[in-house]
């Protein structure tokens, strides 16, 4: 990696933030004017949402399982194994469901977007699209943005549900808890603010995954090596952003709902 002066480095970073902000703005507002590419939005919903369902289900289910298993050890010391349902439900809905779903979808789709758009960039397909009178942001970025936000919301709900189901399986089969008691405790543990918090996070994560993936795709240069670099950067940056934004949203929600 070549060394550059601090001034050049700072200018590069500020320019990158500016380009990212411009891309985000156009990606958002494009939906409010024509032409709108509904077919592309539905295609992306299928690719991002339906395509990511297996990994989200597996991740959510086994996270719920291991959460029940690990927490039972600590709860046993206080004679509160029956509260396993509370702990699994709260952890899954408020934190692990949204974050793990975001990270898994980021790994699968931010990389996919960066490599797909990056390949189009280095083979001049993006320029060809512009030369054919089509706005690449409108055609490629906007459908991915709205499809990711919409589908991540529902994927998070699926992850929460299968996580609680996984916790139930372990609690009933290995810890000997009563199924009715587990589900009753899980249900009672959750209040309105917890659900709102858990379902607000995927909106931000979806935005981050799509915009970061598309941004690095659009900025790709340097052939196949450049595509690989963009893909890696997209996954790393979007994952880190998801965790940082998760903290900020959690703090804001605690401020609003008091828990």
């Amino acid at each position, binding site marked *: 990696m070549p060394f550059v002066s601090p001034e050049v480095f700072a200018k590069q970073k500020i320019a990158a933030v500016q380009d990212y902000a411009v891309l985000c703005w156009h990606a958002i507002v494009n939906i409010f004017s024509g032409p709108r590419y509904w077919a592309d939005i539905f295609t992306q919903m299928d690719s991002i949402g339906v395509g990511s369902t297996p990994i989200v289900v597996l991740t959510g289910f086994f996270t719920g399982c291991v959460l029940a298993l690990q927490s039972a050890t600590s709860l046993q010391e206080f004679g509160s194994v029956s509260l396993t349902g509370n702990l699994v439900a709260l952890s899954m809905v408020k934190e692990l469901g949204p974050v793990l779903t975001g990270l898994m979808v980021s790994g699968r789709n931010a990389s996919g977007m960066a490599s797909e758009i990056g390949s189009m960039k280095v083979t001049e*397909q993006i*320029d*060809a699209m512009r030369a054919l*009178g089509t706005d690449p942001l409108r055609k490629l970025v906007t459908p991915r943005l709205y499809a990711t936000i919409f589908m991540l919301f529902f994927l998070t709900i699926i992850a929460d549900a299968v996580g609680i189901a996984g916790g139930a399986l372990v609690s009933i089969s290995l810890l000997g808890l009563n199924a009715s008691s587990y589900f009753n405790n899980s249900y009672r543990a959750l209040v309105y603010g917890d659900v709102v918090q858990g379902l607000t996070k995927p909106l931000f994560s979806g935005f981050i995954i799509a915009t970061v993936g598309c941004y690095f795709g659009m900025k790709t240069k340097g052939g196949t090596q450049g595509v690989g670099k963009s893909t890696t950067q997209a996954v790393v940056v979007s994952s880190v952003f998801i965790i940082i934004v998760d903290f900020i949203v959690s703090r804001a929600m605690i401020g609003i709902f008091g828990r």
Partner: protein
Amino acid sequence: MPEDLASNKPSRSQQADSAAEPVVIFNDVSITFDVKPVLENISFTVRHGETRIILGPAGGGKSVLMKLANGLIKPDSGTIRVFGEDVTAMRERDLFKLRGRIGMVFQESALFDSLSVADNVAFRLHEERVPEDEIHARVVEALQFVELEQAIEKFPSELSGGMRRRVSIARAIVSRPDLILYDSPTGGLDPITSTTIIELIVKQRDVTQTTSLLITHRLQDAFLLARNHFNQQTGQMEPIPDGGIDNSTKFLVLNEGRIVFDGTTRELIGTEDPWLKEYIT
């Protein structure tokens, strides 16, 4: 051969554009990438119906010039007018409308690899919300023009380099543009396939009289264009009788980002410039 392409004169061509005002005007255009000047003080014009061949060594800024003409990149200084509109000052949204009158053939074809040949050629027509029946008819017509109608259902990965270039030409001409930009259409192709591509360009030039800019590294392709015409009776490219030269074909030679020649074929052949003489021999 689909004579429809010949009879269908550019639907959006405006008579005011023709003859009087040049289609493309570069005025003192310069552009620098990082610290390296790529084009310096480039000025030239392309008139209606003219085919301008851009020659020059690799790395001389020819492809950059082509992208500047289509508004894909902006110059650091100078102005570029296409169909009377200043593309250097236009917003991207307005440029999309202008590009509806411009067809472009990219160096490596730049076909959309996830779309079939039919969808690639029909891309612009789909964007313009043309009815499906008309799209199909025009795609078949364009593919017949490049003699590739049998490949309509194939994907770009299933085509040879020459076939991809022909699909790219079909995609550029399907909307009946008033200006076509060919960026090294024969680059990387064998001599026989190159001649086939040049024949298509000659056919397009002589049948529709479309204004065009063409980049090439191959002098033989450039002179093939200048010395041949398309015979619509025989459907073949033929040498112009008595060693004649096509008057609508002119040359622009670039070297290290500067224009070293701007003129007709005869002026190029008769040049006294030592570098140019060495380059064309």
